[in-house]
Each structure stands twice: as C-alpha cells, then as structure tokens.
C-alpha cells in the first residue's frame, strides 16, 4: 500500500515548514526509517524518515519550498504497485472555533462628552455639568490647580437660561489689555491661529466663536444685534471690556459696533475686510459654501476666499466638513445669512461708527477680495488708516499674516493701555 509523506509540524508555533535537501530522488528505492529529506528550522535541520519501504513517487516539493504543515510532499509506493494519488481538496487547517465572541468582561461605559481642552474638572463636576447642561468653560474652579469641583457648579445660578453660551478661548493669558479676535460669517475662532502664532508673546489674546459658529450655539434670535450682544457678554464675563478689537468680515462689523457699545472700552480697532461698508457682497459664495457636502464641492468655494489656494492648507476643507457633521452649524449659518443679507445685499452699515473714532483705527483690504469688494473702503474718515494689499483676497490675516501681525502690534502699541 502507498504511504503518504506530509510536511510535518515540528514546533508548536509553526504552521509552515521549509523544505531542506532531499536525500532520495523520485523513483528511488527507500527503506523504512531511512532519512528522506530535511526540514530547515531556526534551531537546526530536522531529518524526516521514510514511513515505509518502497519506491519514492509523486514528489511534490523541492528544496527551499515553504509549505503548510500537513501538505503532501510525496508517496512511498510498494514495488510494482499501480497507485494514483487521490485528489485532495485544500486541507482544512486546524479548525478553530469562531473566536469573535469573547468571554464577557466587565463593562466600562463611562462616556465623557465635554472635550474642553486644558480644563481641569473632577469627574463629579463633569457629570454634574453634563446632567445640567452647563458648560464647564463657564465655571470657575475652586480646587487645586483651578480644578472645577462639583460644588463650583452648584454655585452656577440655577434657573438662569445659561443653556446657550458663547464659546471663547484665551489664546494666551497675561498682563495688560487683551486683543479680542472676532471672526467672520461661516468661520470660527480657529481661523485666527495662524496669525496669532506670529504675535509677540506678551499681550493676552481672547478669541470668540460668534453664535452659530464653532462651538457656540445659535439662540432664537438670528440677528446682527444678537451677535454684538453675545460678543459683549463674553468680554464682560472675561473681564476684557478694555481691549484691542480685531474683527474680520462680519466680525469686523461686530467689532466696529462694539467699539461704541456701553461698557466696552475699545483701545484700538482693526477691521479686516469688514462687512458693513457697502451693500455688495457675494451671496453665491455663502450659498455654495454652506451647501457643499464633500471636498470636491467645497474646495472651489474656499479657493474663492484667497488668491493662492495653497495658503489655505490641505486640512481646512476636511476639518470644515467634519465640524459640520458634529455640530449644527449649517442650519444656524443659513439662518444668519438669511437675516444679514436681504436680496443678496448687505444690510449692515457701520460707517457711522467710524465717522469720528476716538481710538486708533485701521481698515485692511485685499484688492482681490471677491466677498467684500475693496472699493468699499472709500470715503472713510481721515482718522481711519487704510491698508490695501495687492494680490490678496478676502483673508489678509491668512495670506498676508506677517504684515497683519505687524500692523496689529503697531496698532495695539498706538492705543497703548
């Protein structure tokens, strides 16, 4: 009878074997127990003996071949035997049971939603905030290292509609009057970071997410006045009522109105491509920007903001889209856009605020601005310094950030406090 020769498993953890040298050839007579071939392993070559005496036939592996354990390598056939090796279906490997069902282990179901970075708060405080819909960012911590403790939340007035609150971030804390950054329509406070990194490391800086943008929810009132109120509340809460104001686009208009608001002492005013100086704008941009739901659709609109698309960086489009999936921004911004643009034209007018400024004011435009045209900057008061950048679009604080940084420093110095 014929005896099958298989690739043997020689070590517990091996599923394959590497053929070494053959000691007998196809057709050779072999004796039971004599070495037929070797297997190469990490430790040493291992000899494999003939399982029976007879003729070596149907050799199916050569030196150097790597074969699964259990594979047929050949047969030892009896002398004169008329033998045909059976057709074997692919060998079922060591049948392992479905191990996808793991034995149950203890469940760990703590989920923490508040992702405020750099905030110290005890687990108990976080839970209380979650349960009561309070923002930890609004609470002052009384624990070690400023840690917010549960009792600190107890002191948050209960019943006051603090369900909605305005997100703000101190980009830097320090001594002296801060710079307050207010972004434009459909943007958020993160847009200031590239510029902020270029500012010298002394002056404190506070950035705000306007309602309906970034991490700030939009309340019932979707109006320009609501935006101004929100910004003002933040400045009051943060003790930053005496500040240098920097606003971009819609944020510029907010900053201009803020500079006249009671309780606010604007030490200087920097308006970058501000809204409110003319009626024209680019309503198609806002529609298209808010409607885009993938990078291919969004990118052309983003590119409209600048003259050199490279200056936007590759992360902006995906980050913008991701943000939309996590936060109800599109709906909020549609409401605002509708309120602020009637028939596709700007409804805000800030010229009065700039008629007789009592603090240093700079207005900056890029000449290639396709959202708020640069010619809006005409006929401003002589006390307003106008800076116009050629080959720059709607985002001078991005495309000409070094120059902007210098201008901000100059302005803050001029309005020294």
């Amino acid at each position: 009878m014929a005896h099958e020769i298989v690739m043997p498993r020689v070590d517990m953890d091996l599923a394959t074997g590497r053929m070494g040298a053959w000691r007998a050839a196809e057709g050779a007579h072999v004796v039971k127990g004599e070495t037929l071939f070797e297997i190469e392993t990490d430790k040493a070559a291992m000899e494999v003996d003939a399982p029976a005496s007879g003729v070596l036939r149907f050799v199916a592996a050569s030196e150097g071949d790597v074969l699964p354990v259990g594979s047929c390598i050949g047969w030892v056939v009896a002398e004169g035997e008329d033998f045909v090796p059976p057709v074997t279906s692919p060998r079922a490997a060591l049948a392992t049971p479905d191990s996808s069902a793991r034995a149950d282990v203890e469940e760990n179901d703590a989920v923490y939603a508040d992702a405020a970075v750099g905030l110290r708060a005890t687990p108990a405080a976080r839970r209380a905030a979650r349960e009561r819909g309070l923002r930890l960012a609004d609470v002052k911590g009384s624990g070690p290292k400023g840690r917010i403790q549960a009792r600190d939340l107890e002191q948050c007035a209960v019943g006051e509609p603090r369900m909605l609150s305005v997100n703000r971030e101190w980009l830097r804390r320090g001594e002296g009057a801060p710079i307050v950054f207010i972004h434009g329509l459909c943007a958020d406070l993160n847009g200031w970071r590239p510029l902020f990194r270029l500012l010298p490391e002394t002056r404190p800086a506070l950035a705000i997410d306007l309602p309906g943008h970034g991490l700030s929810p939009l309340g019932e009132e979707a109006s320009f006045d609501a935006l101004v109120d929100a910004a003002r509340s933040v400045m009051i809460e943060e003790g930053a009522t005496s500040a240098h104001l920097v606003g971009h686009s819609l944020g510029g208009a907010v900053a201009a109105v803020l500079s006249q608001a009671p309780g606010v002492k604007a030490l200087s005013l920097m308006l970058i491509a501000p809204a409110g100086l003319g009626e024209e704008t680019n309503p198609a941009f806002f529609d298209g920007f808010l409607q885009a739901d993938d990078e291919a659709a969004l990118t052309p609109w983003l590119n409209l903001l600048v003259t050199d698309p490279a200056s936007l960086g590759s992360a902006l489009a995906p980050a913008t889209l991701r943000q939309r999936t996590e936060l109800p921004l599109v709906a909020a911004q549609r409401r605002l856009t509708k309120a602020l643009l009637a028939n596709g034209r700007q409804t805000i007018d800030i010229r009065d605020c700039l008629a007789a400024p009592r603090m240093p004011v700079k207005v900056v435009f890029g000449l290639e601005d396709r959202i708020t045209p640069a010619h809006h900057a005409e006929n401003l008061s002589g006390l307003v310094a106008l800076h116009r950048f050629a080959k720059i679009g709607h985002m001078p604080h991005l495309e000409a950030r070094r120059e902007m940084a210098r201008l901000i420093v100059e302005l803050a110095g001029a309005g020294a406090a």
Partner: protein
Amino acid sequence: MGARELSYAEAIREALAIALAGDERVFLMGEDIGVYGGAFQVTGDLVDRFGEERVMDTPISELGGAGVAVGAALTGMLPVYEFQFSDFSMLAMEQIVNQAAKLRYMLGGAVQVPVVFRMPTGSGLGGAAQHSQSIEAWYAHVPGLKVVEPSTPEDVKGMLLAAINDPDPVIVFEHKLLYKMKGPVPEGRYETPLDKAAIRREGRDLTIVATGVMAHRALEAAESLANEGIGAEVIDLRSLRPIDKPAIIESVKKTARLLAVYEGVKTLGIGAEVSAIVAESEAFDYLEAPILRLGGVEAPIPYSPVLEKVAVPQVDDIVASARRLARGQV
C-alpha cells in the same frame, strides 16, 4: 448570648477545635504545631485534645507538606496547613499556585481541592526582611484561590470556619501584630462570608479602604480626624480574592474621595487593585479628588526599629493623607 473576649490567636484555636471536633476529615499540618504549640502559640494545646494524627507536626518541608495537603484534599480529607511565616510559603508556591489553584479548572471541574493554608503575615516584631513580608497580592492575583485577611478575633474565627468548609483552596492571612489583640467573639460555630468587606465606621467625607492591621490604624486615624471635623468611612476589606467591589463603590459614591491603606509594597499591591476598581466603575463619576494609596516602602522590611516603623503606613500617615484628601489639597 454574651460575647466574651478572646485574643485573635485564641479565636483561631477555637475555630480549629470546633472544626476538628465536628468533622473527622479535618486535620492540621504545620511545623511545630504539636507539642510546641505553634510559633505564635496559635495551635496551643490542640495536640493534647485531638492527638498527633489530627495535629500533625511536619518536618521543615514546605513544598512536600503543602503538596501532601493538596493530595489529601483531592482525596476526601480537609487539611488545614499552617506556614510558620507567609515568607516560607514561597517554597510551596508550586503546590499552591500550580496545583491547588488550578487542578479543578484543568480537570474540567472533575475535582475539588478543599485545602486551607494559614499564614502569619506582616511586620512590626523585628523579624526583618525574610520574616515580615506581606505578599497577599501575590496570591490574590491567582484565579482558583480564595484569599482572606481577617482583622478581628470575631472575623478570624468565622472566616476560618467558613474556609474549612469551602470546597476550594483558601489562604488565610493572619497579621502577626493581631495575635494578641483581644476582641469579642461569639460562642459556638458560626461562619463569616469569605467575600464581604466590613464597614467599621461610617463617614461622609472620605473612604478609607484598609486590610489587616491597617484596618485598626485607619480606625484610630478616623477618631483623630473626627476631632477636626472630617468624617472618614473605614472599610475593612477582609476579602482579597474576591474583593467586595460593591461595598467600595457604594462608599466612594457617597464620599467622593478614596484612600487605600495596605501593608504590602505600594507598587502593584492590593490598594492598586482597589484604586482600579473604583476608577473603572460608576464611582468614577463621583470622584472629587485623585485616589490616594498608602502602602509599604519600596524596600525589603528593615531590621532596625526606627526603619521598620517607617517602612509601612502608620496612624499619622493615614491621618495626614486623609486630611489632605478631605480638605481638597490634592
């Protein structure tokens, strides 16, 4: 029935006597437990009352002796093996951990190993490095063993009787400093569960979880803290495998602060497990401060009394840590 006072050692002796009298299958093994009465005078006169067949002196042969206990337990007997010091059990770890703990599982549930290993543990008597260790965590780490550390005479009697009647291997740690401590002990036979902690004192300001002699130090500390207006809840863990998780979790949910106190080396000790239990439980959401641990120093137990004292937590250490925790200074 009035509870008279017995020492911890006397309570153990009483438990052993009740077990020996109540079941022929029970017998004791250990070094010098017969006529000598045991290194800590625990077995005392048991050999006179029950004879040398029931109270067997062994040679100094921990591995062999422990294995004999395992074999006897496998085949119908109820041996109670005394190690003279927990440190010496290391010579028998093969039989305790590789055999006793695993036989039931490896054999698919076909056998039981109802053996009890008793071990004096801990420092404070000048025994130095090789006679003073607290290795509870080593054994509590092993599935298949049950591990307890009673800290009162009442508990050691009840838990030992429960251990002897338990079908699985049980290790009973007895802190050496407790042997002479007196306390009320009910008469007759009773059993104390092997899987429940005991709340020794209620409080609202922090939870102290302690084992062995540390449970007593924690109570002393709690007295002192009460004078400062700090209410410490003291949990005497008693059961190390399994640990009474619900008791700890419920307590921390109430107090929001946790201090674990244990004699074993701090790193990777029982208190580390207690901390993790809380951190991964619903009690996490109630914490108002980091979890603190007080444990043994990262060194072998020293000989010199001034060093031996600071090598493990003392009452003052517990008071200081508890105070920082309760006052939000941490």
